[in-house]
């Protein structure tokens, strides 16, 4: 998954920090960048070394203790200079190149200073600048700046020795602030961790400000201010969808691509038992039009999202193209080994009895069959995208990933069809953003998230949408991009209960598991591309068994999806 909260540079910075720390299981509290947006490799390594050699959470708590102070950024700068010296001395013994990297960083300091604009110069703190200059001058052998006695003492105090442990470093940090700024962090250092409140803080001047990096700060749970507020109606009586609701659905999502009788047959077949209180809507998004304020708002919001999706695509065009290329290549390799090779005549191989007479009669030795170069491809892929509100903070990412998948599959001549699904006002809506016959995959930019997700009904409905002529004779694979957290406002339609059970939690997971099992029993392979929280892994496993991959970032998409397809193809082959 392309983590949109971070630019590529920020991800690179995080990787440098993790590598230096020797572990990847923590979120760095600080990242360092140059004004041009490139990661400051050396200082990111320093952050990583701090994690490696010291107790970073305690150091972080110290930073958090003065978070509200107007001098906080200045303190950060000083203290990181102190930490830099300490962890440098610790690390250089086992990483000899560090001395060279430090010297280059010192030289870079002067290059950066020379390129600062006047506004940037005014923005920076001169006392901090003086300390930095004193440090870097000594590192790269330049003339040290002229320092006042106090500045000299500060510079000396900021040379935290490498022998210090975490307690020693904290003592030095506390001592520094008290001695030179009369600031006493006091109990804050031992106070409960304030990590939750301390947002990702970036070292000033060398670093890009947070706003430029963090496009959004949602939790991924749909709590972004723009998110439509949805909630269960509690235990009150549930009213099944009305004609008004149908008009609303038609207005927002476009007219149905199935005729009324076809839709009725589909609903009669599928909207039974646990989905008895629901309805279905299958659309291509044709002719949506606002009929009231709410529908007009939603349509406008969808249009804005489409623009954002397109903009995101443009911004990440290089990465997306590279992902398409990579995934196509992997798929091509898989397909060339997994699909049936058309037999061809040869001088060795399996004897072909019907041609055996040619040997004595015509002296034709080619009466054997071997696997030829030509490959018969026989699968068809349906891509099903969860477009519920929980995906609100990943819309552009999911849109791009769907594009990557569709484009790659199309490139290797596998027919692919894409649906998004969501539930709203009791309707489960399947919106086709790419048909089988179309080779254009940019329809994925229509992806926008809102509503609930009744995964079980969406999967069942998709399983029944099999009358396209291009599907005939092909084996179906459904890839669902999901967070494995089915949830709908329309309750389970179990009639024996007075108060219907909500469609959420274990019950919804079970319903989805049953739907997947039913599809598999029909010979349809179902695999999940998972983007959710770790807390849903168990549910994911329950629903899809082993047939899933977890994607955390774009670079994993190609490998993950190709592995998943490989797994599904192997299962098919062994059927």
């Amino acid at each position: 998954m392309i983590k949109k909260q971070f630019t590529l540079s920020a991800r690179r910075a995080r990787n440098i920090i993790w590598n230096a720390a020797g572990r990847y299981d923590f979120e760095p509290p600080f990242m360092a960048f140059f004004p041009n947006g490139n990661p400051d490799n050396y200082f990111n390594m320093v952050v990583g070394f701090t994690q490696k050699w010291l107790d970073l959470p305690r150091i972080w708590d110290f930073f958090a203790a003065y978070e509200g102070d107007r001098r906080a950024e200045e303190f950060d700068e000083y203290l990181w200079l102190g930490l830099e010296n300490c962890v440098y001395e610790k690390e250089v013994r086992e990483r000899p190149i560090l001395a060279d990297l430090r010297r280059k960083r010192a030289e870079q300091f002067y290059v950066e200073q020379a390129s600062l604009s006047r506004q940037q110069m005014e923005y920076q703190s001169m006392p901090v600048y003086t300390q930095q200059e004193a440090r870097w001058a000594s590192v790269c052998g330049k003339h040290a700046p002229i320092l006042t006695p106090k500045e000299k003492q500060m510079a000396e105090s900021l040379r935290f020795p490498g022998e210090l442990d975490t307690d020693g470093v904290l003592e030095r940090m506390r001592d520094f602030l008290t001695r030179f700024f009369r600031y006493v962090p006091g109990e804050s250092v031992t106070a409960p961790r304030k990590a939750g409140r301390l947002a990702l803080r970036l070292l000033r001047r060398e670093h890009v400000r947070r706003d430029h990096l963090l496009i959004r700060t949602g939790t991924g749970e749909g709590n972004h201010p723009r998110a439509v507020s949805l909630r269960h109606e509690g235990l009150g009586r549930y009213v099944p969808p009305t004609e008004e609701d149908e008009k609303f659905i038609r207005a927002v999502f476009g007219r149905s691509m199935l005729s009324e009788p076809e839709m009725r047959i589909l609903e009669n077949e599928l909207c039974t038992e646990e989905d008895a209180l629901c309805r279905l809507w299958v659309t291509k998004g044709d002719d949506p039009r606002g009929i009231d304020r709410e529908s007009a708002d939603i349509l406008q919001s969808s249009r804005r999202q489409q623009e954002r999706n397109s903009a995101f695509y443009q911004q990440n065009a290089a990465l997306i193209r590279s992902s398409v290329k990579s995934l196509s290549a992997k798929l091509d390799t898989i397909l060339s080994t997994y699909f049936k090779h058309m037999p061809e005549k040869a001088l060795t191989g399996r004897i072909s009895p019907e041609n055996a007479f040619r040997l004595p009669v015509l002296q034709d030795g080619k009466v054997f069959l071997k696997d030829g170069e030509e490959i018969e491809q026989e699968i068809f892929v349906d891509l099903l995208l969860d477009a519920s509100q929980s995906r609100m903070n990943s819309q552009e990412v999911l849109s791009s990933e769907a594009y990557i998948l569709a484009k790659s599959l199309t490139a290797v001549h596998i027919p692919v069809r894409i649906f998004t699904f969501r539930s709203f006002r009791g309707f489960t809506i399947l919106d086709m953003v790419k048909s089988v016959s179309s080779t254009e995959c940019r329809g994925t930019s229509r992806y926008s998230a809102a509503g609930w997700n009744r995964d079980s009904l969406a999967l069942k409905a998709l399983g029944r949408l099999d009358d396209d002529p291009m599907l005939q004779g092909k084996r179906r694979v459904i890839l669902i991009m999901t967070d494995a957290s089915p949830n709908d406002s329309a309750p389970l339609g179990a009639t024996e209960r007075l108060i219907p059970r909500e469609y959420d939690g274990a019950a919804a997971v079970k319903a989805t598991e049953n739907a997947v099992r039913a599809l598999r029993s029909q010979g349809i392979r179902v695999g999940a591309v998972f983007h959710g929280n770790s807390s849903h892994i168990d549910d994911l496993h329950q629903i899809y068994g082993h047939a899933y991959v977890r994607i955390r970032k774009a670079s994993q998409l190609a490998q993950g999806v190709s592995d998943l397809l490989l797994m599904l193809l192997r299962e098919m082959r062994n059927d």
Partner: protein
Amino acid sequence: MEDLYLFLRNEGIDPSLLDAVKKFREDHPAPTESASRIPEPEYFYYGKKTWELAIAALLAGKNLLLAGPKATGKNVLAENLSALFARPMWNVSFHINADAAYLIGTDTYNGQAVVFRPGPIWLCAQQGGFGVLDEINMAKNEALAVLHAALDFRRSIDVPGYEKIDLRSETRFIGTMNYGYAGTRDLNEALTSRFAVLDMPLITGEDLNKLISRRYPAINARICDQLVKLYEELEKKAESAEISDAALDLRGLLDAIALMEQGICSGDALDMCIVNKSFDAYERGLIRDVIAARIPSDLTREIVFGK
């Protein structure tokens, strides 16, 4: 062989196992017609416990399945074992379309009649070789079913329409398989039960250090140490799924040192043999960052191979 034998003694392999291997070799001299198939390993496998387990399993007449992730030395060990036991080696690379004919043999016309042309498994069985079944889990189960009789107590291969042959007593099969990432799957039980399964550990830093130092005795010890740490860092990054395992290439690291020995500077050598193994520009950037934090890009042969 003496070199390998000495190496294993120095590695502290149980001498009684090595004596038993000697006796095996004396009892089963290598067939002259396939002597050229006895490998002469370029690299030795490092890992005392793995060696002991593998030797013991083969001495006990078992077939061996080496299972583990990329770059754990499965094929190196298989080759080393063939060399140690002085058996001709047949390497069979499996793929999804590998079938019985590919393994056992095919029909062909010799100008007068349709005759059987033996495949690698057949030849291996007849000549008492070591058959290395590479990436065995890539093949369809039904293709492997033809091996069942060869791998279990029956130790025979029966091809309909042709004679049945019994495996020579010194014949062994060594399977290799990757596992641990989505897309791979286990072998079926019937096949797995015919092997002793050896879970191949990742090479330790200490063993990698020895491997490099043995191959390139003149390498500067500090630089060797940094290269080992670089490999460990790449390993960790791949484990954390920040990069694919394309760049986690032990052969690539050794090749890079070989290039440095030829006078290519460290930056170019590592680019060619490690960084460029990834075809994703962004991933290459991440790999370069890891290298830049360990190895200067301008190391010359004189520095790398100097005191």
